[in-house]
């Protein structure tokens, strides 16, 4: 079915509420990055990806590799809303025996594409999947989400070179450009700019978008599907902690769980969106 932008916004709001509750219950997690990527993940799972929650091992499904595994609360929450597993499982995240491990673990949740967490390896793995798919003339697309901070890792650039060399046009990388990492702002820790030019010089097609604008996310992913010359990177500019005023753009919320009072305040803000989100079309 087709979803309107308003519907996607409503789903995103519910997902954000779930994320806060999940991290509150777990007492651990990465709220900023998780909240920031909700709109991208919702768009992927509801509009872009060819997939079937009832048949997660369908061999022609589009693949979504999550390199920055620490934002798994967002992926888990979107997957639950999409019907991959029961919604109540969300609140067992990180608990003993849960299908939702603290970082994505494919042994416990088969519908994940990979086990991930250690940064810098997701793009390489996705390159392997995309390369294999091309060898076998498969039509599916491999998407990868990675963080901006993980561009500090050498392994990531090894993969950027590899995808460029091999013109892996069935590969789309979405970079969560939220400008924060654990120790502070990316440009203070290890500057990445000019990031777009770096990808261009490695032989990639580049698209720069507002990672909270559903229209832009959809159009960038569709455009990436139509590029046959080389791999595409979508730099999605996002607001870490999106939807919760006191978390937004604050590196302190990269890897910190809210307490009860903070969580309540956060959920209230998400419900009203605190006037922070520019409604679609304005």
């Amino acid at each position, binding site marked *: 079915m087709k979803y309107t932008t308003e519907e996607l916004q409503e789903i995103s709001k519910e997902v954000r509420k779930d994320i806060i509750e999940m991290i509150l219950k777990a007492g651990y997690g990465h709220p900023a990055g998780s909240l920031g990527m909700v709109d991208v993940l919702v768009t992927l799972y509801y509009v872009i990806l060819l997939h079937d929650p009832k048949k997660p091992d369908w061999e022609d499904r589009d693949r979504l590799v999550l390199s920055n595994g620490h934002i798994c609360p967002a992926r888990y929450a979107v997957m639950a809303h999409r019907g991959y597993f029961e919604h109540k499982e969300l609140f067992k995240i990180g608990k003993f025996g849960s299908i939702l491990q603290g970082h994505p673990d494919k042994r416990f949740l088969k519908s994940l594409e990979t*086990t991930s*967490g250690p940064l810098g390896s997701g793009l*390489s793995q996705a390159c*392997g999947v995309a390369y294999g798919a091309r060898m076998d003339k498969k039509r599916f697309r491999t998407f990868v989400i990675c963080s901006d901070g993980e561009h500090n890792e050498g392994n990531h650039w090894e993969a950027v070179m590899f995808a460029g060399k091999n013109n892996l046009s069935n590969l789309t990388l979405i970079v969560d450009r939220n400008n924060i990492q654990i120790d502070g702002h990316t440009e203070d820790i290890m500057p990445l700019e000019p990031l777009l030019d770096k990808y261009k010089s490695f032989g990639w097609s580049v698209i720069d978008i507002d990672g909270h604008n559903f229209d832009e996310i959809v159009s960038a992913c569709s455009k990436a599907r139509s590029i046959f010359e080389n791999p595409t990177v979508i730099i999605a500019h996002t607001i870490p902690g999106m939807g919760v005023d006191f978390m937004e753009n604050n590196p302190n919320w990269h890897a910190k769980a809210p307490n009860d009072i903070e969580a309540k305040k956060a959920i209230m803000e998400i419900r009203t969106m605190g006037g922070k989100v520019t409604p679609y079309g304005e």
Partner: protein
Amino acid sequence: MLNAKLNLNPDIFTKKIEMKLMRDGFGHGLLEAGEQDERIVALTADLKESTKVNYFADKFPERFIEVGVAEQNLVTIASGLANFGKIPFATSYAIFSPGRNWEQIRTTIGIDGYPVKIIGAQSGLNIGHYGVTHQGLEDIALAQVIPSMNVVAPSDYNEAKKATLEMAKIDKPFYMRLPRIESPVYTTEKSPFKIGKANILTESKKPEVAIIAYGLMVYQALLAYKELEKNGIETIVINMHTIKPLDEEVVIRYAKLTNAIMTIEEHQVIGGLGSVVSQTLSKNFPVHMEMLGVQDRFGQSGKPDELFKEYGLAKEDIIKSIKKLIAKKNA
């Protein structure tokens, strides 16, 4: 005497014995495996010829991937290929893979148990003049500590080929180490080989010591066995070509028979065969042991024989240690 059931090379102790590269055994095995199964793909990190993956690459260029000098990428791309359904052989040198890319192997291959075969060539002291930076002496420790990983170290050309063909058919991750130099082909095509099952190379009614070795050290052990036999000292030589899963049954059986076990390896004793054999025996049947290998030291340049002597792995060192071990158990 030699175990007749193993169909060992009749020229085993003569100068006529053929010398071949285990790396060629791997290369030829991979080519054959590639012909049998089109899911097999091969990767290298700028070491196509010296890892002998070139035989496969020349025959199946469309199934060969060059990643450049990037060992982390090598294994993570291999992981992705296996995730898609391929059977990747990822080749480099032991020091770099699993040396430089250990966490990637653990996370992206080990945890989900993808059937990636990691080939670490130029392992051990025998790489000689290249020196300490290129001598992989810790690769087996690094590989075997990963829970799902299987670890194989063949002892001649034929075994390297058979191991390659067999691991290609097993849906599990593997690490296989290969030395640089040529070595005597003391087995034949007819010699049995099964991953996880040690080969008992010699037989004796009253053996004094059982020697357990892998790789180049198996033939060194056989040379020691031969000389000791002349002096009336009987030993059992065991080729432990699979370090993980270890053939514990054989280790325990021969510990019971001899009360004295010696391990030999071209690797750090810490985390190597010496460690795992000793663990097995401590739990099941403790006996006197000697563990030859690199004793918590770094390597250096030199000819293989010079290095074996310096690090206590020459035939003379083995004989001396066996005598010491016999004295210990009889004390």
